Structure formats: C-alpha cells, structure tokens
C-alpha cells in the first residue's frame, strides 16, 4: 500500500464534520456523495477524476493558486540529487561489468537518477497549461518548520541533560502552541507523560538513556 494515510482530500457532508485536505499530497482522492469515482483507471489506484473540489475548503483556508509551483522545485532537487550521487561515486573504483568495483553500483544508480531527473524535467516542460500543479506555500511550512526546529533543540538538549526535562518542554510546547490545548492540560500531560516514559524506558526496560538530571535528582 503505497500511501497508507492518504485518505486524501475529502469533503464530508455529515452535519457536524467538515474536513478537507488531510494528507492531500499523498493521495488525492475525491469522494463524492454519488461515489461514481472508480472506473477502469480505478484498477490502478488512480481514481482521481477531477481536480480537487475541496480547494476552497483546504484545511488552512488557503487559496491553491498562491505559492510556488512545486514541480520545477522537484525537478531541480532531482537534478541536484543525481549530480551529487554521480560526483560522490566517481572517486570509488568502478571496475568493469564482469568485475564490478565498489563504485560500480552507486554509479549505475547515479546515472539512473540522472535519467529520471531528465524525464521529470521533460514532463514538466510538456505539462498541459490547464494542469493545476501542486503548490508549496511558505505559510504551510511554518508550523512543521517550527516543529522541526523544536526537535533539533530537543535532541541537542537530550544529549546534555537527559531525557526528562527536554521531553517535558517539547510535549508542553507542542500541545500548547500546535494543539492549542490549555496550559493546565498541556503541563499535566507533559510532566506525567515524560516521567512515565522515562521511568518505563530508563528504569523498567533498562535502556541506558543519556544521564538524566531530573530523573536522577527525583529518584535519588
């Protein structure tokens, strides 16, 4: 199953629930009440029949037409990736087909990447003008970006002061700022959760976590 959570963009007409755009990038399904979606193409898992009708109700309320076209970005990344692999494989011994060296296989893969990058580029250039490309907006990356930074800080701190303190701060921050939970609930869950996990892994399962300031102070 190539895309497990790709429930895609779906609009629900049950009275109390309106959702759209969940995991839309992964699989773009449109579920219509008539459900007349699966046709012969459906056999291949490509039952996309119409451009997302949910554009206007995207969960972040954004307009799909804004933002940067994702396709040239993807092509550029592919070219860079292929180039990097080829360049890195060059210094290794290549050998011959009958006696392949260590660098032979990576080089084959680098060439394959280059070919695929070219095909992607060609597909982008030949794309029909009516196509509605995926767009990448800076705005939609703010929260995940902040989350990534918080995780970097988390790992740095974890190496310094152990598991418990950074985990409390991380969970608290995520629940309060990303989840919009109340301070009280966030703090409660963060402290309880982190302590339970720390005791479970460090003491019960015996995982040698980095020295934990808080835990060793509490369990002196």
């Amino acid at each position: 199953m190539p895309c497990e959570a790709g429930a895609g963009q779906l609009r629900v007409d049950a009275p109390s629930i309106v959702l759209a755009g969940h995991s839309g990038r992964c699989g773009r399904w449109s579920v219509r009440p008539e459900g007349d979606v699966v046709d012969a193409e459906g056999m291949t898992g490509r039952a996309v029949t119409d451009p997302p009708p949910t554009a206007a109700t995207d969960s972040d309320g954004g307009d799909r037409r804004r933002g940067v076209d994702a396709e040239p970005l993807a092509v550029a990344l592919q070219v860079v990736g292929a180039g990097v692999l080829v360049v890195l494989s060059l210094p290794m011994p290549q050998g011959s087909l009958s006696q392949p060296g260590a660098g032979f296989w990576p080089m084959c893969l680098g060439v394959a990447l280059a070919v695929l990058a070219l095909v992607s580029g060609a597909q982008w250039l030949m794309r029909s003008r009516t196509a509605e490309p995926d767009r990448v907006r800076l705005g939609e990356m703010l929260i995940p970006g902040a989350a990534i930074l918080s995780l970097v800080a988390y790992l740095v701190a974890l190496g310094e002061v152990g598991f418990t303190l950074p985990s409390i701060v991380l969970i608290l921050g995520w629940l309060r700022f990303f989840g919009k939970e109340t301070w009280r609930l966030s703090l409660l869950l963060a402290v309880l959760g982190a302590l339970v996990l720390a005791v479970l892994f460090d003491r019960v399962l015996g995982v040698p976590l980095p020295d934990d300031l808080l835990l060793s102070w509490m369990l002196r």
Partner: protein
Amino acid sequence: MGVIESLGLGLETALQPENLLYVLVGVLLGMVVGVLPGLGPTATIAILLPFTYAMEPESAIIMIAGIYYGTMYGGTITSVLLNLPGEASSVVTTFDGYQMARQGRAGPALGIAAIGSFVGGMVAVVGMIGLAPVLARLAVGFGPAEFAALAVLGITMVCYLGTRSVVRSLFAAVVGLALATVGVDPVSGSPRFTYGSLNLLDGFDFVAIAMGLFGVSEILYNLQHKPPSLVGGRGRIAGIWPSRSDRKEARGAIVRGSLLGSAIGVLPGGGGMVSSLASYAMEKRRAKDPSRFGRGAIEGVAGPETANNASSVTSFIPLLTLGIPPNPVLALVFGALILQNVTPGPGLINERPEIFWGVVASIIIGNLILLLLNLPLVGVFIQLLRVRPVILGAFAVVVSMLGVFSLANSLFDMWLLLGAGVVGYFMKLLGFEPGPLVLAFVLGPILERSFRQSMLISGGDLSIFVTRPFSAALLILAVLLLVSAIIRPLRQRRLDRADKVAVNG
C-alpha cells in the same frame, strides 16, 4: 511435514499465551489505528519496530500482521459511520457504506464488512497454505538473476501503483537504493560513502529510516494539515446482522472479493487499497444496475472490504517464500525479521517452520478475534476520534525517539530518525512518496548482491537476465509497466481536457 501437522505446529506457536497476547494487542492496535485518520498502519508499524526487537521473531511478525489486518477492519467503522476513511484502503468503503448509514443501514453495512473481511481472510489463509510451499519450492531453483529481476519488478510495481507520478516514485526508489549502498561494500569489503564515520560503517539503520519517513514525516505533516477529530456526535447502531436479502446480494461480492483480493495480495505492489479499488470496479461492472453503486449498494461494501483483508493476508506470501516484500508494510516486516537475524527467503518455511506456520495460525485466530470484537466495540472505537491529533503526535514523536535509541543506544540514530522525518515531510510536500524509497532501501542490498553475482557468473554479459526464462518474464513485465506508465499521463491529459470541456460545457 504434512499440512495438518504443520498447521498443528503453527497453532501450537500461536496459542502460546504470550503470542496470543501479541495477536490481541496487534489486532486491537490495528483497529485503533484504522479508526484514527492521520496515523496509518505503515506509520504505526514503523514506530513500533524497535519494540519488536525484544520479542521472539515469530511473536514480532504475529503482532505486526495483526496490526496490518486489524486496520483493515478498523478503517471500515469510520468510513461507514462518518464518511472518514481512517486509512487509504477503506476510502472505497465510504462510497456505498456511508450512503447505507445515511439510509439507517449502518448496522448491516458494518456487519457485512466484518463477515466479508473474515471470509476473505480465511480464503486468503487457505491460499497461503496452498501456494506458499509451492512457491518456496520453485524459488529454491532461483539464481541471482531471478532474484535481481524479482527485486526490480517489486520496485517497479510499487512505483506503478503509487498514487502520484510514476517517475517521481521511481526517483524515490533509486534514492532508496542509493541510501542502501552506504556502509561496507558487500563484495569487496571497502567502505562506501562513510567518510571515516564509524556510525555510517554499518550503513543507515533501516528502522530509523522507516520510522522517520513513515512516522515522523506524517506527524510533521499533520501538524499543518490536521486530520479530523470528532467533536460531539455519537455512533449508535442497531441491527448489525444483515438481513437475508442483504446476505444474498452480498454473497457473490464476498466470494469474488476473496479470490480477487487474495490474488492481488500476492503480486508485488499489491495491497489493501489496490485490491479494494479493483473489487469495487469489478462489482460495479458486473452489476445489473450499476447506478445503485454510490447510493448504498451492499455489494460495494462487501466486495472491497473482503478484498482488502484477503490481500493483506496473502501479501505475506512473497516475503515469506521469496524474501521479497511486495509493499511498504511488508518491507517493515522484512526489517523486523532482519533485526532478529532471520533472513526471509525460500528456506524459511523449512528452516523456521514455527515462523511461517505460526503466522498462518495467528492470522486465523486474529481474524476470529476481530470478527467477535469488531461489532460490539464500534461505539468505543468511535470515541477514539476524540483524541486530538497533536496530543497523539507529540507522544508518538517522543516514543519514536526513545524506541530508535533503545535499539543501539545511539544518539546518532535519533538524529537519523529526525533527518529522515524531515526528508519525508518535504517529499510529501513536493509530491514524492516515501513508500517506494523504503521498499527500495530494503531491497537494495538484495538487488546489488544478486546483480553483481549474476555479472560474475556470466562474465559481465547482461544477457543473463533475459536468457533465463523466469527472470526474462519478470523483467518483461517490469518493462511493460514502465512503458504503460509513460503512455498513461499522455492519455490522462486527453481525458482531463475532455473532462474540462464537459464541466465547462
């Protein structure tokens, strides 16, 4: 060993108290995950991989299998009651299942789905018992050329069946192959891409890569694109047992779904979503009055639900007999077995019968548990939707970090996990799928080794791949898929244009 004896051994394994517990934990977890949108079976299994390390190999895969087919049951509930597919393969169920619910027939929809799933699972088990030993015997004669061809076909199929661009999926797959080359070259023993780092000498850790690409990336993505959670509302269902006419209408669909799903599961790239779509298409085409579909036709629920469960069972066959995982979930099972120093392949059934037959028996038990638990617990599972996704995400990240650390007690793996998560997140944004990458990462060493062995055998003659009948057939199939993948976008473009005209006109 005869089938009965072997099955006896399997039951003995599966009925050991701790394995029974793992089946139960697996299927319950699977149902929970199936209900919750935003966390699919792949992400869950990936996050739980480190915890299987401490188990016996058969227990580990018994639990993972339980999660996998458990989600097939769980996804049905929210699809029918709320039109919310909890995971991809139950998207199809929303078409008719939700319509049935709106007509007050949620009970029979859920009932027939559970019965169908159970029947499908049992048919698939029979298929597994019949087919797997045959396939394993056949595979004993496979040389490196055949294994290389199988790996290529597996990767191609997964890319072909992906929901996005085939070219991008292939690109992701080759990146996966490239990532697998980091570490010591299996033939010459010289280090590749390690740059003096001891951490890299063993290569990238599969678990960290899989957890990052599937689990952490999903969590990051969901922070912005929030999956739904239930606010208010209660699922109340009456009359679960389908009426006689319901059963009559659904019988054919269940039989066809069982066979179709079992067949698709064995194919590389097959899996839940593909089989449920195929079954829906088949039922609709066969129906006397296709216009009933999408308006609450019970066959539209029974067929796909049966098929997706059947395929989730038979997809274990290629892994346990050939050592080739047919889809990303089975790639995770492969990873779990490798972690245990068990290499799946043609010899597995004979060398470790308790693993193969234990899984077979546990699937029977697990499906029974699901059939019995599914319907009474519907109300409870609906309440799960109250759990807010961010709370789930925050704890899932922390548990993932702990889990990956516990495998090798290495901070490096935690960074690798985060790195893979970030890469996976941006892949999603740019329209690349992580599935092919992870599958290729697993198959990478197999493919490279068998390719280079083939070259040594043939003295550098590439024709070895096409002069051997099996590998030739497999490669031709792969090439056909690629060709059709290139042609299809062109055709699709014409269809799009026709659609636009129809909409505007």
